[in-house]
């Protein structure tokens, strides 16, 4: 299993770069992961989305763009602006949760 040094910690990743052990996740790690996805700064809105995604994961809710858009946390348009070039795949990566196996 690949590992990477992020924010001074050794982080376990899968072959697509997603964290495999959520207990290793910290905000500092998230900031480093975001930089790897060319997101230089995580704003309050980014954190809000990240927390929402983590909550969904905890509650075993299947994630889709549609669901996030309807969450009241953000809109689909804003989600694309926050995480350009693959909003759901990037936001879940930064949130330290698995990439959603969703086609919608």
């Amino acid at each position, binding site marked *: 299993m*690949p590992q990477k040094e992020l924010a001074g910690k050794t982080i376990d990743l899968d072959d697509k770069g997603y964290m495999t052990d959520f207990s290793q996740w910290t905000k500092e790690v998230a900031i480093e992961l975001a930089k790897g996805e060319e997101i230089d700064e995580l704003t309050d809105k980014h954190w809000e989305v990240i927390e929402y995604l983590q909550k969904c994961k905890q509650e075993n809710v299947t994630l*889709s763009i549609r669901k996030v858009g309807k969450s009241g946390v953000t809109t*689909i*348009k804003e989600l*694309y602006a926050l995480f350009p070039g*693959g909003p759901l*795949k990037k936001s879940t990566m930064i949130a330290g949760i698995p990439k959603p196996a969703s*086609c*919608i």
Partner: protein
Amino acid sequence: MEKKEKIKKVSIICAKGSLEDVYASLVMTNGALMEGIEANIFFTFFGLDAIRKNKMDKLHTGTVGNPAMEMPGGLPFPTILGSLPGVEAGVSAMMRKEMDKLDMPPVSEFLEIITASGGKVYACLLAIEMFKLKKEDLYDDLDGILTIGDFYQEAAGGQIIFT
């Protein structure tokens, strides 16, 4: 983690108006956008039903001449049954309900999602003239009504997929 070559842009042509054909095009377009791929969707001929306001959320699936059709529970679906009045509408409504359970949005909402995601939605000029449609009959956020020449220009630098 070796980086594979990435598809950068797709233009998807939806030329058929049955439920499954339209959803195939919509899912492919939205799926591309979700992966960070630039995407256009171009509706032509019967595919225009997907952007006609009065038809988009009532699309049907064919119950005649569809050998893949089966009864709930997996029994064969006799073609003669599919030809009875109301059967196609019933089967289609059932299909839409199943899709809703999978969190698949109705066509109108799916188009809105694609627009909000930065995808471009186009309609074919020739087909619109043929079906005598007006702009107000169509999806409000249409990005344009194009000739085939315009379409090729919009599709430049990407791949074209005909569904």
